[in-house]
């Protein structure tokens, strides 16, 4: 004999079953008016689908934007890796992997030692899951195109074109960041290739912030272009950074003004202050 409770629950089941049935009957969008990435055609970024080619713009449009950005975007992007158009190149090329810092995410010219490729192929040595997480995994033909782009030097999207002005696009660590000693490269990315003859410790400064004022870091820094990423300058302290507050500034010193290889002066000085902490 059913109890009142059983009857109530049977009713609940009678409600739950149609809910499942309605979800089962829910349809995917028909894609009308959208491009291959699900963006409205003609509403910015609504370009028609393109064939995947071995250049960054095509890889961004055909792989990162439609597939990876679903998880790798915004504040909660896994491992801090944002793969939207605004961030992806600067955070991939010549930048150490967070999971395996001995490997660069994209090592220009060397796809086999690029952690991005290893994660996409599910290589034996990767940390964590193969990407894209949960599948579908990229077909080998798509990975082959990404490999080819890296083999060709992992050129930036602006390598074939010219930007309107010379500006800083990325400062890493960002303003307010807290990083562990030696865990992150110090990177300044520009909109075009900087003239390295104008890039020195007076135009690109890394200083320690002390109560008595700014102090040059002990031993100074070396400045070099990221391999295969000529618009990105790597700032390497000659001695490890001690825990404390640091300020990274570009074009803020007065006097010599940084410029790009086309002699366009830096549009605006920029700086970031970050904290270096001891490793836990």
């Amino acid at each position: 004999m059913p109890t009142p409770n059983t009857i109530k629950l049977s009713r609940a089941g009678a409600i739950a079953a149609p809910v499942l049935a309605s979800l089962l009957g829910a349809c995917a969008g028909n894609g009308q008016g959208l491009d291959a990435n699900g963006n409205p055609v003609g509403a910015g970024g609504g370009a028609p689908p393109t064939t995947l080619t071995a250049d960054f713009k095509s890889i961004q449009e055909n792989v990162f934007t439609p597939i990876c950005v679903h998880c790798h975007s915004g504040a909660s992007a896994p491992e801090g890796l944002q793969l939207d158009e605004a961030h992806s190149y600067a955070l991939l090329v010549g930048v150490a992997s967070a999971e395996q810092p001995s490997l660069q995410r994209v090592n220009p010219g060397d796809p086999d030692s690029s952690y991005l490729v290893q994660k996409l192929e599910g290589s034996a040595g990767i940390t964590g899951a193969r990407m894209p997480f949960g599948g579908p995994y990229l077909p080998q033909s798509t990975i082959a195109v990404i490999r080819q782009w890296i083999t060709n030097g992992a050129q930036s999207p602006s390598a074939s074109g010219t930007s309107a002005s010379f500006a800083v696009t990325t400062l890493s660590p960002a303003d307010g960041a807290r990083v562990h000693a030696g865990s992150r490269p110090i990177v300044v990315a520009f909109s075009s290739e900087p003239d390295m003859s104008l890039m020195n410790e007076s135009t690109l400064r890394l200083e320690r912030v002390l109560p008595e004022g700014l102090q040059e870091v002990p031993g100074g820094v070396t400045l070099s272009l990221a391999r295969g990423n000529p618009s990105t300058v790597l700032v390497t302290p000659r001695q490890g950074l001690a825990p404390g507050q640091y300020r990274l500034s570009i074009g803020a010193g007065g006097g010599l003004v940084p410029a790009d290889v086309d002699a366009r002066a830096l549009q605006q000085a920029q700086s970031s202050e970050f904290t270096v902490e001891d490793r836990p």
Partner: protein
Amino acid sequence: MSLRHTRPLLGLLGLLLAATAHAEPYLAVANGLKCGQCHVNPSGGGQRTVFGEVFAQSQLPAQHLDTGTDTWTGQLNRFISLGGDLRFQGTVQQVPHTATTNSFDLEQTRVYLSANVIPERLLVYVDEQVAPGGALNREAWGMFWSADHSWYVKAGQMYLPFGLRLQDQSAFVLTTSGISMATPDKGVEFGWEKGHWDAQLAVSNGTAGGSTNGNGKQTSLQASYVEARWRLGLAANINDSDPSGSRTAYAAFAGLKTGPIAWLGQAEVIDDKSVPPDGQKQLAGLIEANYSPARGHNIKLTAEYLDPNRHVANDQQTRYSLVYEYTPIQFLQIRGGFRYNDGIPQADAQHLKLYFIELHGFF
């Protein structure tokens, strides 16, 4: 399984049922338990409690292999407990206009270790993924319980409380919120448990394991009410750590048992202002039916829905899964199933068909 063999385990289970208990969501719903009855983590997942270990041996398998009086409880001694989880998969995936691929993958091997340094009060816990690849720390925290176990404080790297802690980490409701067992964060959690209620408040860096920044923090708040045959919960998450904009997520989740079927449901809305150029609002939903025709057998039917951008029409995606889970003996499960994704016609990747068979070992 003969009654003679199960009696000692059932006796132990009976004793343990009198105490507090936690589990995988559908098992928790089917048995009217809170997550923390089967897992040392009060919000679920990871290492099992003694109750969870006994439950896994006595209630899950179709047949219990007799081990006499040697019953694995995870306890190496009074203070130290060990657990583990291994998933090995063979998959076939089909995507339109792409060659079918098939592969064997070691999805994960995890080791759980906990030290009850002050029994019932202070627990130190580590969840380490040891394969594939290099070691990867998933959780590492210390937790202090109040004397009456009505509240706790947890600090370290942890999974955040937000909705159902599903086994399938690629479910829309997990990938859309960005809060899953693949994205632990460093922070502090305060938990409260009283009768049918439990609640958690966590404040974390908001960078999903990435480097911290000084722009803000992530706050997660969850409350749920658990009855023997149903439960209902609400969750909110506000991540203010990205200088380009905040991300807020709200979820409602529920469980219901009707006869041999355990139902799970979750709906969530996400407003991510950090996505260029103008932010993004998303909607995701899941409903799942778990039908257990006999001990050791479970059939899982799941329907999922995703609207990846609420300002854009015709871009919705769906995902359906049919999974059969067979637990022939204790600590060993075989899972086989099919997942079908559907999306806009012009995006091939949204039309994945995935077939899989998985060997799942756990203790």
